[in-house]
């Protein structure tokens, strides 16, 4: 049951081979057993989960079940969920029981899915190792001395350790793809604007995008069918026709090679200095596998991608510094216990409520927006952002998808990069450009590197090309079994 696909779980539920309550309890028991070691969840509420499971069972009994009805999912703690503690990994929201549902949460609720719990994350999604969470670091299920990646580290660990059927993440600079890579699972960051950001606690509004994290591309497609779609409450949500993200996967291929005609672009900048050898090797084998599936390979260049880290570390902190101003101890969240006056209340509440990395980024953002620096930093970064996006537009004249490593290394040790923010920032070097351009990107397992840690293959598509990307990943997963490997001892 734990290794079943979402489709299989849905079928089993609808056939009443298992009830949602039983399945939910199964996961809750596993969580009780394994979460203390992994710390993948911040909040569990078995009562609420089981109540949802009972509703799902009633819906199944009434013959009104959808594809995901009754399946237990975990939700990244960045999504506001009514009645659930929603912390965003921060002390600032240690007592914030959300009075409303995020769009993504409503979509899962409407589909009859069960919310198993809220997963751990870097504080306000700022981090690449899950070490900035106020609720403790998450351990990588493949090696508990190592990080799971971040910021959706709790989700990645929970999915890898089979502590949920699948789960949600968000990705501002790689926060779905990098932890997916480091934990050996699949994750998709959709085109910006495809999934509503309503109710998703903002980090960098122009880059943030929610997406699914699961054990296979097939599962991701089913989740996308629930998560994606226009929402009038988000001005940046795109008005597009509803689409079936599994349509390419479901197209029957009659004989021959399934990916014949597919042109894969390999950016030379993604295979240059800074990439660990073990990761390069796994990615190259994956490309070789793709050739076997009928794809051809084109060498491309993304000349401005080297600037994506500096551009990102101007734009994202700038937006974040403003987005996080609402956390002031007035209407909700943490308020310092002692203060002398209003200014002191603000300064102490924020100093005590935010962790070091969040404060660091607020300060970077405040600085780059402040008087006299705006043009040199913020405006310059926005201009280079366009150059970075244009690189992709050029590249897609020559290829259909772009592939490369998701992360320059496999999971590093807990604490290894703790004191050096710059080293940590550089671990997002291959993922950030995708957010800056607003393109869809995914990561799928493609083997193991040194210390037997998983390696992720990044697949970057053109705008709105998720269905094709999912099929490209799916064909690889039909031909290989990296995605179905599970960590030992769980």
């Amino acid at each position: 049951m734990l290794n079943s696909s979402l489709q299989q779980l849905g079928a089993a539920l609808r056939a009443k081979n298992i009830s949602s309550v039983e399945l939910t309890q199964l996961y809750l028991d596993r969580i009780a057993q394994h979460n203390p070691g992994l710390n993948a969840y911040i909040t569990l509420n078995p009562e609420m989960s089981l109540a949802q499971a009972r509703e799902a069972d009633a819906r199944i009994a009434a013959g009104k079940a959808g594809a995901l009805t009754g399946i237990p999912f975990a939700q990244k703690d960045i999504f506001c969920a009514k009645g659930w503690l929603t912390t965003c990994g921060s002390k600032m929201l240690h007592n914030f029981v959300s009075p409303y549902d995020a769009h993504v949460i409503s979509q899962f609720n409407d589909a009859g899915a069960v919310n198993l719990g809220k997963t751990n994350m870097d504080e306000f999604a700022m981090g690449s190792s899950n070490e900035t969470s106020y609720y403790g670091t998450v351990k990588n299920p493949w090696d508990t001395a190592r990080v799971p990646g971040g910021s959706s580290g709790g989700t990645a660990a929970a999915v890898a350790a089979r502590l949920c059927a699948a789960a949600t993440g968000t990705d501002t600079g790689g926060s779905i793809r990098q932890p997916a890579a480091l934990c050996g699972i699949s994750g998709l960051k959709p085109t910006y604007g495809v999934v509503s950001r309503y109710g998703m606690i903002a980090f960098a509004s122009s880059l943030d995008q929610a997406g699914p994290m699961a054990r296979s591309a097939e599962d991701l497609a089913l989740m996308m069918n629930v998560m994606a779609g226009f929402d009038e409450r988000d001005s940046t949500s795109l008005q597009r026709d509803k689409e079936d993200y599994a349509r390419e996967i479901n197209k029957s291929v009659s004989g021959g090679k399934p990916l014949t005609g597919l042109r894969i672009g390999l950016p030379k900048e993604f295979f240059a200095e800074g990439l660990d050898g073990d990761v390069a090797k796994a990615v190259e084998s994956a490309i070789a596998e793709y050739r076997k599936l009928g794809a051809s390979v084109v060498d491309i260049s993304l000349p401005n991608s080297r600037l994506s880290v500096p551009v990102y570390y101007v734009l994202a902190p700038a937006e974040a510094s403003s987005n996080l101003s609402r956390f002031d101890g007035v209407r909700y969240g943490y308020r310092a216990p002692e203060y002398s006056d209003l200014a002191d209340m603000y300064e102490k509440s924020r100093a005590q409520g935010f962790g070091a990395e969040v404060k660091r980024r607020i300060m970077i953002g405040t600085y780059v927006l402040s008087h006299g620096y705006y043009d040199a930093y913020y405006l310059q970064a926005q201009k280079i952002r366009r150059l970075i996006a244009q690189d992709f537009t050029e590249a897609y004249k020559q290829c259909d998808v772009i592939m490369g490593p998701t992360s320059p290394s496999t999971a590093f040790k807990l604490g290894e990069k703790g004191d050096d923010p710059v080293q940590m920032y550089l671990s997002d070097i291959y993922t950030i450009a995708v957010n800056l351009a607003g393109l869809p990107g995914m990561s799928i397992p493609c083997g193991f590197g040194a210390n037997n840690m998983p390696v992720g293959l990044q697949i970057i598509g053109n705008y709105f090309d998720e269905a094709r990307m999912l099929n490209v990943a799916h064909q690889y997963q039909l031909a290989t079994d990296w995605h179905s490997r599970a960590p030992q001892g769980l």
Partner: protein
Amino acid sequence: MSLTTADVQKVARLARLAMNETEIEAARSQLSGIFDLIAEMQAVDTRGIAPMSHAQDVAQRLREDKVTEANQREAFQAIAPQVEAGLYLVPQVIE
């Protein structure tokens, strides 16, 4: 690029973050390192390039001017640090 203590103090004040001297000094050194990373970007020639604020070139959608929100004061204030008579209380505001 190296930031001065005064730069960091000013930023901390603007961002409403209480910081003691040790924290200011630590932040100064880390932020300087980060700005070294960012500095690479400043040499790029961007003359004639339009800044990109959004991933998609789409115009703002407009909402009909109709009331859709009901009073939820009770639910919202149940999670507030301090309220009285329906008001959020803060230390005295001096104008």
